[in-house]
């Protein structure tokens, strides 16, 4: 009996040992592959160390060097990646209907270049609400106390226009109902409404680009009233801010796939409402179609891949347009703003002391 037990125990020990050997072999094989991969990778890394865009071989074979900027910028490693294209705003003068040379997309060829524009981009060209060209052009610091609210077109402007200052509350698919009440703005603390986001700071300029996602969604009177109600709410939150209402940019209808209601007739209609709101409420209307129209009431051909979202070069033109179309701050405004800032600082100081 005892012999049988010993035999079983011996067999059991032997099985455990064999199992351990098997596991060890598997691990050795697995780790061996890892080692091979590691050696191969180190070898390839040695070949891909790039300095000023030229591939060289790192003879040291170490992987501990600072990465170099691919564009050959001589800035420090800490800033090399982020500074590559900053400050590269395109200041080329632009004319309505004349496409930029060398734009990212297909070259525009169909836009008329010799005839006078046949289509007014605004319903009332004499409107005092339309922001005229103003000299001198401002620089990016003008936008340091500005907030930009808008849909994917505004988000595209944020992403690729070259703007370096300002706060952006943008969201793809933003429509009037969404801007009014839905939590669509991404923040560090999660998604919040535009109004809640606006409440988080002090802004002296508010740019709103909205309407593309509202084209044909409901009746125009509702849009007018809803837009006024929404901007009035924003005014309550930021009573000292200058309101710039951006025109809805024309679309290239043949490329639009989001719905037939996204057409230029509707763009003209919604823009006439936006201009009307500006006249009624004392807001300022930025007519981007002055530079982005082909002269016939459509987006410049080839300015966009999907007919709606314009390429980088055109976003840069928008930024240039903004810098040339603004409401100068009068001395009275500046004094009032200064007094308020002083007063706010005092209050904050008192608050922190308490």
């Amino acid at each position, binding site marked *: 009996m005892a012999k049988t037990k010993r035999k079983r125990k011996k067999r059991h020990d032997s099985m455990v040992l064999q199992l351990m*050997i098997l596991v060890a072999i598997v691990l050795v094989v697995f780790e061996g592959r890892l080692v091979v991969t590691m050696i191969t990778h180190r070898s390839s890394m040695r070949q891909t160390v790039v300095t000023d865009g030229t591939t060289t071989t790192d003879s040291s074979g170490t992987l501990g060097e600072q990465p170099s900027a691919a564009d050959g910028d001589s800035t420090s490693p800490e800033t090399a990646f*982020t500074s590559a294209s900053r400050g590269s705003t395109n200041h080329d003068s632009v004319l309505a209907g004349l496409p930029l040379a060398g734009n990212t997309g297909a070259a525009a060829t169909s836009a008329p270049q010799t005839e006078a524009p046949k289509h007014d981009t605004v319903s009332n060209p004499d409107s005092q609400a339309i922001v005229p060209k103003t000299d001198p052009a401002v620089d990016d610091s003008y936008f340091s106390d500005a907030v930009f609210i808008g849909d994917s077109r505004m988000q595209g402007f944020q992403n690729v226009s070259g703007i370096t200052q300002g706060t952006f509350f943008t*969201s793809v698919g933003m429509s009037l109902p969404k801007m009014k009440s839905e939590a669509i703005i991404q923040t560090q603390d999660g*998604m919040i409404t535009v109004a809640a986001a606006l409440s988080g700071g002090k802004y002296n300029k508010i740019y709103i680009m909205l309407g593309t996602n509202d084209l044909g969604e409901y009746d125009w009177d509702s849009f007018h009233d809803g837009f006024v109600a929404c901007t009035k709410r924003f005014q309550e939150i930021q009573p000292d801010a200058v309101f710039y209402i951006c025109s809805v940019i024309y679309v290239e209808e043949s490329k639009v796939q989001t719905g037939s209601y996204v057409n230029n007739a509707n763009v003209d209609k919604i823009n006439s409402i936006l201009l009307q709101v500006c006249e009624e409420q004392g807001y300022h209307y930025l007519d981007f179609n002055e530079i982005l129209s082909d002269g016939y009431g459509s987006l410049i051909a080839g300015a966009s891949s999907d007919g709606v979202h314009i390429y980088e070069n055109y976003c840069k033109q928008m930024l240039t347009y903004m810098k040339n179309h603004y409401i100068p701050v009068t001395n009275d405004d500046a004094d009032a703003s200064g007094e308020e800032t002083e007063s706010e600082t005092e209050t904050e100081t008192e608050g922190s002391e308490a």
Partner: protein
Amino acid sequence: MKKLTAILCTTLMVVSLTACGGGGNKEVKVDAGKLTTELLATVTTDTLAEMTVDPSTVYFYEADDVASATAYASSGATACEVAVIESKEASNTANIEKQLQTRVDNQKELYASYNAAEADKLGDAIIKSAGAYTVLCVCDDTDKANEILKGYGF
């Protein structure tokens, strides 16, 4: 003899498993500019441009944790974006990954009712870290992007 073999096997296993657990702290040095350029080639339906606003205002990571960052985004036509972020310490990458994931989740939610195809693309978003580097890649060819990242040690 058997005891000795058992001890050896156990030691070997412990050493092997320890090596497996060390992946997150591996020494990796990445040419971020070159990696970004390669990843941009995996975006075939759009032409991305470099973000000129501070990427920390878009991704909401702690700017103080980051040594450098480069991000490329769309003009709005697609949800594609590529970001390569180098942390000051490798230990910061977990938090950066978390912020990038939040960004992707939020974008996916917003795109769901706006452009379903782009929402799907966000569903395949790649967020990976190696050493002190973290990458976000929302692109058209995720297999290719993963292959590129593997070559860089991700």
